[in-house]
């Protein structure tokens, strides 16, 4: 076997410390090396030309390149090999710069170390195999789960790039949480108005035909992997033909039954057929079969249908649940967040005292399309003379959620600002553990709240230091110092937590959850829009508590990943450095399955052997080390290669 060694001087970086000539003398007697060539800068344009020509002239079977870290130039040299017509995996690189030249004082020792390292590479490279990148056809279509700000921006970005998007939303309405908010921090913009242009683009815009919006729908099954997911979506019946309905609302009035409206946190009622709230999009009501007497009593009421100016057939009483199957190449999770359950804090009275509200409930009270039409009133219909905002409920608390959700201070100061203009005499109390307001615009509301002469700020350490009790004329809050203060209304600002479906979706997609139950990102700083499963991306508050800016940015970031990773018409290249199971050596113990961080291993029950999916495998080698049978081979890092390398270093 003809093995050539290329020794790069790296200018003086290597040559100053390591004498290439002496290394050559040291290695020659072993007879493993067919030739040894030195180059001043192998990565330079001249160096690459030299290497390419030399490979063409010498036609070696294998080469060893002694130069810098493979992290720096392995890919460079592999490309040159490819240009020279040599399989790029028939090379072993030895890092003699960072690992030897830069860290070894004594030139004698440096020569010896270099020789040992090259000898190890010579032994190893003999065993290298020709590996080829493989290609796989992919679907460019995308599934987006959740039509809040993150999901909407993602879907729109992708649709604008010509991608087919299936946008799945569990509720009958799109827009996520902010569409319920009258005004938004930090600039007091109207939530629905701000989202409306995006939602309109999704529904009727230039690229709307690329977006298939499925409301009242949930993902139920996923098979396949990056590039080729087969998904099943269950869509509940709306009983209203969304395409024929013009959203006039004539059907509500005649409906004889009503129930509490979950979109107003059950603080008011809505008819069995109706909008979640005025202005909800898509602009079509939905019929709630748990209220409608046709379903609850088997009646033949058709008051709504009779009132429909568009005629019969717009309200579809025999609408059925549908299972929709789609093939997509990637999936964006944008399922958002909710608030920590405040009824866990008995001392705060939530659920017992009618005027203790959560932030979400207070948002609806503030909203002009909410239960009180935007009037801030207590349960007795009075304007509150005092309102207390309790920040950090369940946050910064090891017994509940140890993190800061980052948005609560902002909206609490927004409330302060709104109250100041709506109820000029109302006293405001902020009870907080910590206050955060980073960002270029965010401090304005904080300062305004501080400047509000009606506002008082009191710090507390532990939530148990507070106690909210009912009084005849409102609530009394016991403060940490033992004093009490009255509040006609108490608004709790709880920790932001993942939605209830997060765990189920995570299990379905094999996407891991972090210790707080949010979807776990690939890397907290560098890759927060990617999950650990290839082809599944994360956007918005399902990954971590987020404001709208972060959520939309992440939605677009996920879209960017998809546009670069799954390009229409371009097959995905599979790195050949993946693991594979020798089926004849596998005893079926299943040790490997648990250890794979990428869920790339499945069990072939018929043959009772494990199988590694080369598309999903990242080539990390964990299963190779774990397999007690030695039945898993890591391409380019076989046990034989590693042992040969060790032997070469020791002998």
């Amino acid at each position, binding site marked *: 076997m003809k093995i050539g060694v290329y020794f790069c001087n790296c200018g003086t970086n290597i040559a100053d410390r390591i004498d290439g000539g002496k290394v050559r003398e040291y290695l020659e007697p072993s007879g493993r090396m067919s030739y040894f060539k030195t180059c001043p800068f192998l990565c330079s344009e001249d160096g690459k030309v030299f290497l390419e020509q030399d490979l063409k002239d010498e036609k070696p079977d294998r080469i060893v390149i002694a130069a810098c870290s493979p992290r720096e130039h392995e890919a460079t040299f592999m490309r040159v090999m490819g240009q020279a017509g040599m399989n790029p995996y028939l090379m072993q690189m030895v890092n003699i710069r960072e690992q030897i030249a830069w860290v070894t004082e004594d030139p004698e020792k440096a020569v010896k170390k270099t020789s040992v390292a090259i000898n190890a590479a010579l032994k190893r490279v003999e065993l290298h195999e020709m590996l080829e990148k493989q290609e796989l056809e992919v679907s460019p279509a995308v599934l987006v789960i959740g039509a809040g700000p993150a999901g909407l921006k993602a879907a729109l970005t992708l649709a604008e790039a010509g991608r087919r998007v299936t946008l799945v939303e569990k509720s009958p309405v799109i827009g996520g949480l902010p569409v319920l908010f009258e005004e938004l921090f930090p600039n007091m913009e109207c939530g629905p108005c701000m989202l409306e242009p995006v939602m309109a683009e999704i529904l009727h815009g230039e690229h709307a035909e690329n977006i298939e919006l499925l409301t009242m729908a949930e993902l139920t099954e996923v098979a396949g992997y990056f590039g080729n997911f087969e998904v099943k979506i269950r869509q509940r019946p709306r009983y209203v033909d969304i395409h024929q309905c013009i959203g006039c609302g004539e059907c509500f009035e005649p409906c004889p039954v009503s129930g509490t409206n979950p979109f107003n946190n059950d603080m008011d009622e809505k008819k069995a057929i109706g909008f979640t709230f005025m202005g909800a999009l898509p602009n079509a009501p939905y019929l709630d079969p748990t209220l409608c007497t046709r379903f609850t009593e088997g009646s033949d009421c058709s008051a709504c249908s009779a009132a429909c100016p568009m005629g019969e057939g717009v309200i579809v009483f025999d609408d059925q649940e549908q299972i929709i199957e789609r093939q997509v190449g990637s999936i964006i999770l944008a399922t958002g967040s909710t608030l920590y359950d405040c009824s866990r804090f008995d001392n705060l009275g939530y659920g017992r005292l009618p005027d203790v509200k959560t932030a979400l409930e207070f948002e609806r009270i503030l909203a002009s399309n909410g239960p009180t039409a935007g009037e801030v009133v207590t349960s007795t219909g009075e304007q509150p003379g005092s309102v207390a905002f309790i920040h950090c409920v369940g946050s910064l608390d090891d017994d509940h959620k*140890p993190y800061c959700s980052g948005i609560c201070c902002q909206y609490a100061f927004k409330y302060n600002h709104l109250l100041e203009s709506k109820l000029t005499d109302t006293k405001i109390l902020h009870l907080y553990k910590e206050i955060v307001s980073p960002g270029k615009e965010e401090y304005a509301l904080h300062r305004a709240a501080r400047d509000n002469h009606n506002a008082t700020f009191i710090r507390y350490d532990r939530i148990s230091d507070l106690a909210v009790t009912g009084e005849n004329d409102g609530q009394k809050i016991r403060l940490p110092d033992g004093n009490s203060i009255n509040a006609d209304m108490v608004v709790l600002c709880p920790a932001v937590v993942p939605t209830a479906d997060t765990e189920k979706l995570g299990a379905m997609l094999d996407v891991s959850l*972090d*210790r707080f139950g949010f979807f776990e990102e690939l890397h907290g700083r560098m890759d927060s829009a990617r999950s650990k499963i290839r082809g599944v991306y994360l956007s918005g508050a399902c990954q971590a508590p987020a404001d709208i800016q972060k959520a939309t940015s992440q939605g677009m970031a996920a879209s960017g990943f998809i546009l670069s990773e799954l390009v229409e018409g371009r097959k995905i290249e599979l790195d050949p450095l993946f693991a594979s199971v020798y089926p*004849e*050596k*596998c*005893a*079926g*113990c*299943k*040790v490997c*399955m*648990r*250890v794979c961080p990428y869920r790339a291993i499945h069990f072939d029950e018929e043959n*009772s052997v494990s199988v590694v999916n080369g598309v999903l495998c990242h080539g990390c080698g*964990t*299963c190779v*080390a*774990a*397999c*007690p*049978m*030695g039945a898993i081979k890591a391409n380019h890092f076989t046990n034989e290669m590693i042992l040969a390398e060790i032997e070469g270093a020791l002998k």
Partner: protein
Amino acid sequence: MPEKPKLAIYWAASCGGCEIAVVNLHEKILDVDAAFEFMFCPCLLDTKKKDIEALPDKSIAITLFNGAIRTAENEEMARLLRKKSQLLIALGSCACEGCILGLANLHSKQEIFKAVYLDNPTIDNPAGTIPSPASEVPEGTLTIPAFYDKVKTLGQVTAVDYFIPGCPPESHQIWNVVEAVVSGAQLPPAGSVLGAGCLSVCDECERVKEDKKIARFYRNFEITPEPRKCLLEQGLLCMGIATRDGCGAPCPQANMPCTGCYGPPEGITDQGARMIAALGSILDIGDCKGKSEEEIAARVEALLDSVPDYAGTFYKYSLPGSIIGGRVKR
């Protein structure tokens, strides 16, 4: 009648279990007798060493050699039988990889003698006599075989044609080998393992394997295992995943975890290291995100503490034949 091929069974440092496994062939032993001239077996026959020395080289067709090499005599007999035999077969775990007595390699010869001849409460040895290859007595010099510093495998002192693993080997597997030799079937290349499979015990164990995630280990007496579920998954330290098959998995199927007597699977050089590598991947210390290093270390420690005896568990049968071989003295 043509002369029958000669068969020898020798024991070196061994317990006699391999002989019992041979006798457990039951009536098939008559077939062995019909096929071979069973001419040397210190456990059963009165043939002497000098009778073997008197034989021409290679005149014994097969020697089944059981037991490890503990003394100079063991090695001398191994070399003698190698010379006189056409096929020298290592029979059983001791000859193949050193077996339980190989755990003595964790101690020096001096420590062993001290424990056995001096500190042992049932020994009355006021003179502090310990065995020595040569002892001077009034009548002259008494000699006994030297006790080696380390237990060795048969393969470490002489060339071995085949290996039959097991402690002891299953009788039906001994028969399979004998039958293959008698039938004149094409034998695998020298150095191969005979009378065993090429996978691991899991392949023969019918217990259901699912998710391997082990939060702690239990000693056998601590739990009654669920009868159909993989024992390792239930926290019993079953060596089956890193042990060659061929035994038929009788232990795990009788609720006893495999202790690894059939040695490493095909192609694996170090059974203990393999087992540890595999366990290292499936031990579960819970979610460690955000936990302090001390807490993580404490959890690891607690889990490892539930392994009763590292060497005696992972290298119960294979220490002399493993890469580490034993304790290294410096």
